[in-house]
């Protein structure tokens, strides 16, 4: 019989080894699945994990890695702070949309001026847009004790409706021949968020993500606010004893996560997406929740998890194209990765013992 025994303190070695083991197990289980579909498993795994970075067409796919990982990491870092404190912002997708709308609207208001100040103003507006949208569930929670999971999630759908209305109304390109969607912000130097280092995909959003990772790491490990966030998540009563004001923490955490999601939206709309359209959002806000948990709510973990997630998306697309593996199989493969990562987490907190137990 196999049984689990709780460790007195979480194992450092296993917390590092578990993700590697999980990736290995995913390759084995996924390989079996691909073989059952009649595809060469080794080739499929090579296409998913290797080709996007080192393969024949890597010059196309490599920049995509950072383009996709950037917003995921930026949003996930913000979410992880709240999640650590037991504050569940599920509506980053909505805050991402609102950040993009606020930022784009600011830029478009200056059109066709060419001033260096416009882009920084847009960045600030994007952060404000996301923060304000997150303040709605935050204030509802602090004033009326509503459940922020529900309110933040429902506000995503409101944001999507606002997005549709903006793309077809206020922000619609007057020279767009009636097509929905705003002017393309990427086409004007004052409002564009260009690739900063050619061939890497790194735009300002990727830089912001890296800064966010470092700042979150310092906040959580060195600053008293980070300590209060961790303490509140672990034991709310001890946190109150340590003078933490729960409502203040809710506002701070929701504000930071909303602001970072808004920034991600702004960098997306000025860069890779270029314009506000009704299909502008592609679910980064939701995927970032998975990224946050895959990274164990730790800034460095989130950095790696965001890159890994982006890799499987890009590699998955390549595998669909090159080997005509069905999209469902790719999703199952991504699901396996998530499953094994979370399952391996058990090893960090528990010892596996073989043999019989009397009790």
């Amino acid at each position, binding site marked *: 019989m196999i049984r689990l025994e709780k460790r007195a303190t979480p194992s450092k070695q296993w917390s590092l080894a578990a993700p590697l083991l999980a990736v290995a197990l995913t390759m084995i289980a996924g390989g079996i699945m691909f073989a059952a579909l009649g595809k060469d498993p080794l080739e499929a795994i090579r296409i998913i994990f290797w080709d996007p970075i080192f393969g024949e067409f890597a010059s196309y796919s490599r920049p995509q890695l950072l383009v996709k990982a950037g917003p995921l990491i930026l949003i996930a870092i913000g979410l992880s702070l709240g999640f650590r404190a037991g504050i569940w912002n599920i509506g980053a997708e909505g805050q991402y949309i609102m950040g993009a709308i606020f930022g784009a609207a600011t830029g478009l208001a200056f059109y066709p001026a060419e001033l260096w100040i416009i882009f920084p103003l847009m960045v600030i507006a994007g952060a404000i847009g996301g923060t304000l949208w997150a303040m709605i569930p935050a204030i509802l929670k602090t004033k009326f004790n509503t459940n922020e999971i529900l309110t933040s999630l429902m506000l995503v759908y409101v944001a999507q409706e606002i997005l549709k209305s903006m793309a077809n109304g206020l922000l619609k390109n007057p020279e767009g021949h009636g097509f929905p969607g705003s002017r393309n912000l990427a086409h004007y130097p004052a409002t564009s968020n260009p690739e900063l280092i050619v061939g890497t995909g790194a735009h300002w959003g990727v830089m912001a993500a890296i800064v966010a990772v470092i700042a979150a790491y310092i906040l959580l490990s*060195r600053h008293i606010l980070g300590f209060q966030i961790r303490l509140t998540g672990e034991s709310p009563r001890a946190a109150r004893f340590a003078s933490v004001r729960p409502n203040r923490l809710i506002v701070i955490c929701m504000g930071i996560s909303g602001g970072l999601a808004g920034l991600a939206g702004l960098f997306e709309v000025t860069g890779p997406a270029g314009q506000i359209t009704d299909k502008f959002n592609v679910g980064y806000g939701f995927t970032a929740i998975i990224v946050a948990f895959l990274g164990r709510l730790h800034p460095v973990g989130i950095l790696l998890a965001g890159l890994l997630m982006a890799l499987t998306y890009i590699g998955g697309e390549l595998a669909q194209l090159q080997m005509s593996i069905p999209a469902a199989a790719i999703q199952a493969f991504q699901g396996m990765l998530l499953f094994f990562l979370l399952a391996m987490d058990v090893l960090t907190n528990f010892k596996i013992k073989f043999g019989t137990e009397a009790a």
Partner: protein
Amino acid sequence: MSEAQKAPILLHLDGLTKAYPGVVANDNVGFKIHEGEVHALLGENGAGKSTLVKMIYGLVKPDSGTMTLRGQAYEPAEPRAARADGIAMVFQHFSLFDALNVAENIALGMEKPPKQSELARRIKDVSEEYGLPLDPSAVVGNLSAGERQRVEIIRCLLQDPKLLIMDEPTSVLTPQEVEILFQTLRQLSAEGTAILYISHKLEEIRSLCDEATVLRLGKVVGNCTPREKSARELAEMMVGEVLHVPERAVKDLGEIVLAIDNLSIASANPFGTSLKNVSLEVRAGEILGIGGVAGNGQDELLAAISGEAKTSHGAVTVKGTSVGELTPNERRKLAILAAPEERLGHAAAPDMSLVENALLTGAVRKNLTSSGFVDWGATRDFAREIIKDFDVRTPGSANAARSLSGGNLQKFVVGREVLQDPDVLVVNQPTWGVDASAAAAIRQSLLDLAAKGAAIIVISQDLDELMEISDRFAALNEGALSDARPAQGLTVDEIGLMMGGAHGMEVAHSHHNEGEPA
């Protein structure tokens, strides 16, 4: 009960051994319980009493050794099997649902519960027969701790047990309630039910029990007839060493430091107890002991002093300044410190290291942060200082709080506050679950702190502890605080009455005796 000696053997334990990773909880434990005997199982926390009774009750399977019940091999696979063989147990922590009534709670524990009306009638019969008045339709959430315990006892008695195991039953009772319980237990014993009575309260055991088995570190270290030993002899058998009695310096009391004036606040917890018109004063150098059964407003009183609960202006003053509006950290700045009862999850965060837990309350007074950034080096030094000065047994300051034993974590929690030089310190249950020598060390540290001029409130359910260290004694009962009286010379009866007497249950046995032909 001399005939109990000659009564046939009910349960014979032989060579029971049970090991857990890193500790042998029971090592070759053996003794006999006769029918109708009240048998004490005596030992400190961690001596292996709980593991032993869990084996008897089928919750834990022994690694080796045998149990014989009425001459038959007895190997209960689960509590249900133990109950079928006539063994019942009243746990220290009750398993009752607050929202259900007494009869519904009892029905939940039965294999085949009878109809509610039939069950209510049986509950009434049993409760009257044994002098434990209880209304079957009362909602458990409204019952006192003593009444809840009766629900558990009656649940057991309905099974007509041959052996009743009671784990620390008096820790939630006032002295008067204890006396009622003892009358019930004596009656059961006279009818032939054996009782295995677990406790570390020596006077109780001397007055109630026929036989005692003393456990220390998992081994049987002695058998005796408790009436023939003094409490001190029993204590030394239990601890295995000569006990150090804390010393009290003769001292002059200073001016009033902490004053609470007519404080009434609602509890933050829906099942908590609101404080009603509480007034008290503590002088510099004085220890005020506050007794009372748990759940009578102890947590709420601590919260009002620590700052977790805000109070109206002037209700709580320190050296004449109103502090009721201040947050816990603002009060810490003024040297007002607290150590709550619940170690894991209130006084300390379970999964955080001892260093982080040192920061939890030490940040302000020990200057562990500068412009918001934590000085981990200084925090580590502070944690190590606590570990060293209070003899906290742990491999290191990086270990998580939950990896420490209850007693060691308690030393850490109390030490953390004492080492911050408080002017006002309030501690709730300072030695709960702590072994005797560590408890003596904690009490000594509180006495030393008072000698340096701190005003201290010790909230405890251990009356012996309060009598040992307090200058004055008061009791909390349903959120109201009695007048404080000098602790020296108080009798057990007086203390019991301050704690609310038997909560209106005094008549139980006298009434019963009248109705019963002699």
